[in-house]
């Protein structure tokens, strides 16, 4: 730790703090304060205490959304992120075609969620969709599943639109791996460690903090995700694919319930905070080089 003059602390932090003030402080303050009001975004908000929170707690749709959100958070933490880290570990060994793979893995991110969702709607289509086509070509000629809308497959189909597109995790993990001095792996190899052992006992512990960071990034983006659901199932069939963000956006779009929507935003904020604190504690993210 360095203890520089106060001037430097202020100067180094000032631009970022100014950005925060300009872009985030207003929305954050508005969200928290108006979550205790009835407000349609136009007229003056009316204070109603905890009504919005009580109402959402009692809502069956919210309960379904909460359950789905938790499932997606777990899928992000235990499948999405590990997959991204695995790809990074594989590509870091520089097998043939690793540059190409690293570049093409970004394609879905370049496309963006809107285009990707529309694309997957076509992929999942009964009759004309490529997924049903592939299964039919394997000999199941009668197979024709409406993946996104049949109750049995809707949740899985929506999840698979994003689950394995973990290029962001791979990218940040690879940058971390590049920082590991080659000498560490070299000396381990001389000691007879297998590549797997080097990954498990040398690389992984060093990149552990970035795995934690990756989980925070993935989990918070799942908490905020709504385009994929919005553009495909709309939360259905029934409430099978609804999440908290979709309810929030619906409340803004369909009934101008800004107060209620902001109560949902606060719930998401608290869930995210809890996730961040938990991950920081589990991955000991707060500690620096010397403290480890």
């Amino acid at each position: 730790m360095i203890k520089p003059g106060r001037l430097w602390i202020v100067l180094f932090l000032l631009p970022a703090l100014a950005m925060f003030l300009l872009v985030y402080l207003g929305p954050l303050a508005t969200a928290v304060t108006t979550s205790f009001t009835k407000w349609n975004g136009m007229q003056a908000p009316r204070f109603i205490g905890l009504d919005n929170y009580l109402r959402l707690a009692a809502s069956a749709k919210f309960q379904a959304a909460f359950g789905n959100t938790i499932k997606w958070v777990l899928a992000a933490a235990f499948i999405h992120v590990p997959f991204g880290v695995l790809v990074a570990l594989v590509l870091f060994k520089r097998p043939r075609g690793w540059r190409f793979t690293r570049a093409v893995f970004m394609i879905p991110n370049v496309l963006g969620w809107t285009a990707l969702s529309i694309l997957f709607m076509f992929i999942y289509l009964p009759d004309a969709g490529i997924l049903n086509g592939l299964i039919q070509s394997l000999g199941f000629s009668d197979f024709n599943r409406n993946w996104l809308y049949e109750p049995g497959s809707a949740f899985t189909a929506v999840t698979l639109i994003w689950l394995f597109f973990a290029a962001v995790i791979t990218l940040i993990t690879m940058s971390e791996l590049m920082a590991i001095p080659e000498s560490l792996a070299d000396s381990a190899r001389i000691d007879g460690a297998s590549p797997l052992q080097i990954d498990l006992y040398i690389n992984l512990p060093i990149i552990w903090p970035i795995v934690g960071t990756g989980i925070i990034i993935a989990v918070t983006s799942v908490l905020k995700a709504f385009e994929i659901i919005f553009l495909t199932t709309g939360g259905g069939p029934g409430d099978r694919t609804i999440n908290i963000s979709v309810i929030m956006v619906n409340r803004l779009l369909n009934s101008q319930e800004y107060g209620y929507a902001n109560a949902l935003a606060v719930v998401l904020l608290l869930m995210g905070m809890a996730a961040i604190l938990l991950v920081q504690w589990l991955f000991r993210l707060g500690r620096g080089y010397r403290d480890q």
Partner: protein
Amino acid sequence: MQTRKDRAAVTLIAALAALLAALPAFGGAEGETAAAEEIKIPMLFREGGNDANTVMYRGFIDGFNEQYDGQYELDIEWVPGMAEEIRLKLKALNSARNLPAVVTNLAPEAAFAEALMRDGRLMDQKPYLDADPEWQKVVFPESVEFNTDAEGRMFTSPSTGAPYIGIYYNKEMFAEAGIDQFPTTWDDFFAACEALQAAGFTPLSLHTTETGWITNLLLTTYLGRTQEGRDFMDIRYPTDEFTSEIFVDAVRMVERLYEYTTADAIGGTYALAANHFSISDTAMIANGPWMISSFSDTQYSPEGFENKVGYGRFPNDLMISNLGREYGRGVSMDHDLAVREGAVEWIKFLASRDNIAQQAIALGHLTHLVPLNDDEKAGLGPVNVEYFNAVEGVKLTIPWFQAQWDPINQGETIVSQLPALLYGEITAEEYAAKLAESAKEYRASL
């Protein structure tokens, strides 16, 4: 101890921070007044490329700017995307008290329109209508009544034409299935579906997303066969009425409709349903006159397809039309009187005889108050002729459900619960109860 480079770094950081911190001080630089000569009338318009609507309005805009050269100039922001984007932008502009002079797209946003009126955000257009006998002659009286409030103020403009919704059908398929007349009763309708299916065709284009548009057109016209059902359709924002036996009965009819449609109808989009009809996958699609131009456009349909398309009324000679009972264009109070009067001129320009006729031809916005002349009639395409003839024989109309039902049902409940109904997860009664529940939720939010 510090080098020159360090000082440069300090200066850079400080300048950056100062820049960010000082940005708010530049407030108020915005809003330079335009050149005094021509009065600019700001307006949002959906950029729709070559669709009939955009092409027609581009002509109107050029015509207006020419006619009022030196006096008014429409200042158009072309908004890419859907009508939703315009509505989103309108709401943001409204919160900043910076609405465009002409406020459009209010018909599907009744709640927003009513809030604007309540907050005094729109100008009363009634004095201008009262002062202009030519304008009075061409507006629908029902629409004037709808757009006028209890105190006699008219914050949104009345309609000069209305589209009618019926059913397009593929005449070749009907002939092959041995159906020589478009069905006029619901029994005949289902018999026609059976005959088409027996002849190897998929009878209907249907879909469940985007308010379940085509599905609900058929559901509501089925309701419209009885007086009780027509009364239901006259209710603005029905709630418990959704659980009535007539409505549940209509829901069961919808379950039956899905025996006659494509595999992708559940979860399908309007575009998918429309495409199935245009490439002769299906024999019928319920829809309005805005679809006509696509039948002769090879971008959407094969060459010569327009000659195969017939246009029928729903059973019982019923068609869907609001007859102008919807919010028209508003004039925003965020501008000077001179600009607002220019906005009124634009609204009146659209209500000129020739422009009304053009809206009837291009968009199917029909009116008995401004009949087409013989030249105009002779120039109509084959599907337009079918459409005009169908409307001639209409005996009953009901309003569109999109104008009557609440936005929660339209925006989220139908799209998520209709697939659940059709996959047997919930019953017709449960589906109706879900609609009632959402409707009540909307009522409570007001």
